[in-house]
C-alpha cells in the first residue's frame, strides 16, 4: 500500500506550523522546546518523503544528522533550562528578559 507524497508533505507542513505557533504562544521553556522538536521532526519527515520519492538515500542520511544535532541540542538546552529552573523556581521565558537594556 502506498500513499501519495503530497499527503506526507501536507502533514509535515501542518506539524511545522503547529510548532511555530507553539513556540510563539507558549511560555514554559520545556514546552517551547518540545515544539522546536516538533518542527525538526516535520523537516525530517519531508527529507524522508523526498528521499523516497527520488529513490536516493541522501535525505535519509540527512535525517540522521538532524537527529544527532537535535539530541546534542536537547542535552545542552535541558541543562540550561534545569539550571535556570533551579535558580528561579520557574521555567517561564517571559520572566527572563535580562538582555533588555
Amino acid at each position, binding site marked *: 500500500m502506498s500513499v501519495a507524497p503530497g499527503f506526507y508533505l501536507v502533514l509535515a507542513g501542518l506539524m511545522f506550523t503547529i510548532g*511555530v505557533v507553539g*513556540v*510563539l*504562544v507558549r511560555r514554559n521553556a520545556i514546552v*517551547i522546546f518540545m515544539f522546536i522538536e516538533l518542527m525538526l521532526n516535520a523537516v525530517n519527515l519531508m527529507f524522508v518523503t523526498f528521499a523516497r520519492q527520488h529513490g536516493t538515500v541522501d535525505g535519509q542520511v540527512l535525517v540522521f544528522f538532524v537527529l544527532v544535532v537535535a539530541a546534542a541540542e536537547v542535552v545542552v538546552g535541558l541543562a540550561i533550562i534545569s539550571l535556570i529552573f533551579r535558580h528561579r523556581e520557574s521555567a517561564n*521565558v*517571559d520572566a*527572563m*528578559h*535580562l*538582555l*533588555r*537594556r
Partner: protein
Amino acid sequence: MIDVVLAAEGGVEAAVDSSNLAPLIIAVPLLMSLLLLVAGRRIGKLAGPLASAAVGTSFVVSFLAFFRLIGIDHGAHPEPVHLYDWITVGDFRIGADFLIDQLSGVMLLVVTGVGALIHVYSIGYMRDDPLYPRFFGYLNLFVAFMLVLVLAENLLLLFVGWEGVGLCSYLLIGFWFEKRSAANAAKKAFIVNRIGDFSFLLGLFLLVGSLGTLSIEGINSESGAMGAGLATIAALLLFGGAAGKSAQIPLYVWLPDAMEGPTPVSALIHAATMVTAGVYMVARMSPLFEASGGAALMVVGIIGAATALWAAVMACFEYDIKKVLAYSTISQLGYMFLALGVGAYSVGIFHLVTHAFFKALMFLGAGAVMHALLGETDMRRMSGLRKVMPITGTTFLLGWLAISGIIPFSGFFSKDAILASAWADHNYALWGVGVATALLTAFYMSRMYFRVFEGPVRVPEGVHVHDAPPTMAAALIPLGILSVVGGLLNLPGVLTLEHFLEPVVGEAHVPEGLTPWILGGIALVVAASGILLARSLYMTRAASVRRRKAQAKAPALVNAARHKFYVDEIYGRGLVLPGKSFSAYLADVFDVRYIDGAIMGTGRVIARAGENLRGLQTGYVRNYAALILFGVVVVLALLLVRVGF
C-alpha cells in the same frame, strides 16, 4: 671595498674607467662616519686623525681617478659605474650610478682636498670640545654626502646627496646646540633650504613627467626636444634649488646666520663645498639651461649679479669677521652664477675652485683669530694681529690679495675670466655689475684685513694671543700656497681648466685681440682702487674723520645696510607671521571646529541611532522568534518572486 668588487664583477666595460673608483671614494668617509658616530666615545681623541685619514684616503683615490681622466682623448666620454638598480617602475629606472668625468673630477679634488685640510685643521680647533668625536663623525658624513652629490649620474641620487649635505649642514651649524642662537640658526638654514629643495623637487617631477628620465646624460641630450617653454620652467625650478643651497637672492638669508657653527664648518660647508653645489648643478645641467633659449640663463645671470652686488654692499658694513666672510661668500657665489648666466660654465667652475682655496683659507684664518682671542669676532676689538700671529696673518694676507683680484694671485685670474666672459657675451650690464662688485670686494676685504691684522697691536684684555697651533697651520699653509698659484689652473695658453672641462660643459667664449688685456687692466685698477679706498678710510691718521664724513653723506643707506636692509624683518613680517597666524587658525579654529567637529558629530549620530533602535531589544524570546519567522517569510517570499516555483 665590496662595492668596488661588485662594480668590477658587474663587468662595466668602459673605455675610460675612472668612474670605477667612485664607490670607494664615497665609502671610506661614509664608513668612518658611521664608526665615529656609533663608537665615537670609545675612540676619543683618535677621532680627528682617523676622520682626516679617511678623507685623505678619498683624496688620494680621487687623484688616481683624476689621472685616468687626464690622458684620455678630448672627445671621449667616461662611462658611469652602475652599482645596482635603485628604483624600477615599469620603464622608469633609476640606478645607483656614479660618474667621474672631467667636471665631477675637478669637484672631487676640491671636496676631498680642501675637506682633508679642514679636517686636519679641526683636530687643533676642536681639541677641547666635549663632543669632539661626534664633530668628526658629522664632518665625515658631510664629505660622504657631498661626494654622492658630486658623483651622482642621475638627479635623484644627486638629490640624496643634496639633502644629505643639507642635513649635515643643519647638524653642524647647530653643533653647539645649547646656545639658543646656534639652534635657531640651524633651523633657519634648514627651513630656508627646504624652500629651495621644494622647487628642486618640482623640477625633478617635471623632468620625469616630460622626459621620463632623471639620468643627467639623458636629460641633457633630450632637453632640446622638450620645447623652450618647458625647458625654461624645468631649468628655473632646478635653479630655485640652487638658489637655496648656494644662498642666492631671495634665499640667501640663512648663510650669515650659519656662522653660528664652528669655524671649520663655515670653511668647509659654507664656503668651499656645499654652497657651491648649486653652481656645480647648474654647470652639470647646462644643456637643459641652454635649451630654454636664453631665458633661464638670463635669470641665472641677473640673480647672480644682483646677489653679488647686494651681499658685497652688506659686507662693507658688517663688524663680525665671520659674517663679513659669509656675505663675501654669498657675493662670490653670485659671481659664479653670473659666469654661468653668460654661458661661461667652465669659468664659473674655475672661480668655484679658486674661491674654495682662498675663502676656506680666510675662514680658517678667522677661526685661528677666534681661537687665539677666545672666540672674539668683532673686528673693532682687535688690531695688528699679524705681528703676534705671523702664520695666520701672512696666510690671510695671501687670501685677501687673492679675493681682491691682485695679479698674480688666483682670484685675479678667475674673476677676470668671469668679467671677460660677460664682456664676450655682450652682456655689458652684467659686466658693469661685476666690476662694481669687484671694487666693493676689494674694499670690504681690505677693510677687514687692515682692521684685524694691520696697525698697532690691540687685543681684548686678559687674552694671551698665540699663533695657530701646528695642526691648524698645516691647513693654512697649503691653502695659502693654493690661493697664490691656483690661477695657474687656467693660465691662458698653458694649462687650461676650461679646455679640460670642454667635453662636459662646452666651450667658453673669450674676447679676442687686445680686449682681454684691457679688461684685465680694468679689473686690476678697480681692485687696487678698492684697496686704496679702504686704506684711506682705515689705515691713515685721519681715517676715522674721513669715515664719519663719508657716512654722514648717506646716513639712511648706512643705517639700512647696518640692519642688513631689514630683509630678515621683511621676511619675518611678510612671510613668517602670516604663516604663523595661518597655522594658528588651522590649529585653534579649523581643527577644533571642523576636524574635531566631524569626528564628534559621527559619534553623536551613531549614539543617537543606537538609543532609538534599542526599543527593538525587548528581551522576550517570543519577540525574537517572531522576528526570525518574519525574516524567513520575507526571504522565502523574495526567493519565490525572483526564482519562481
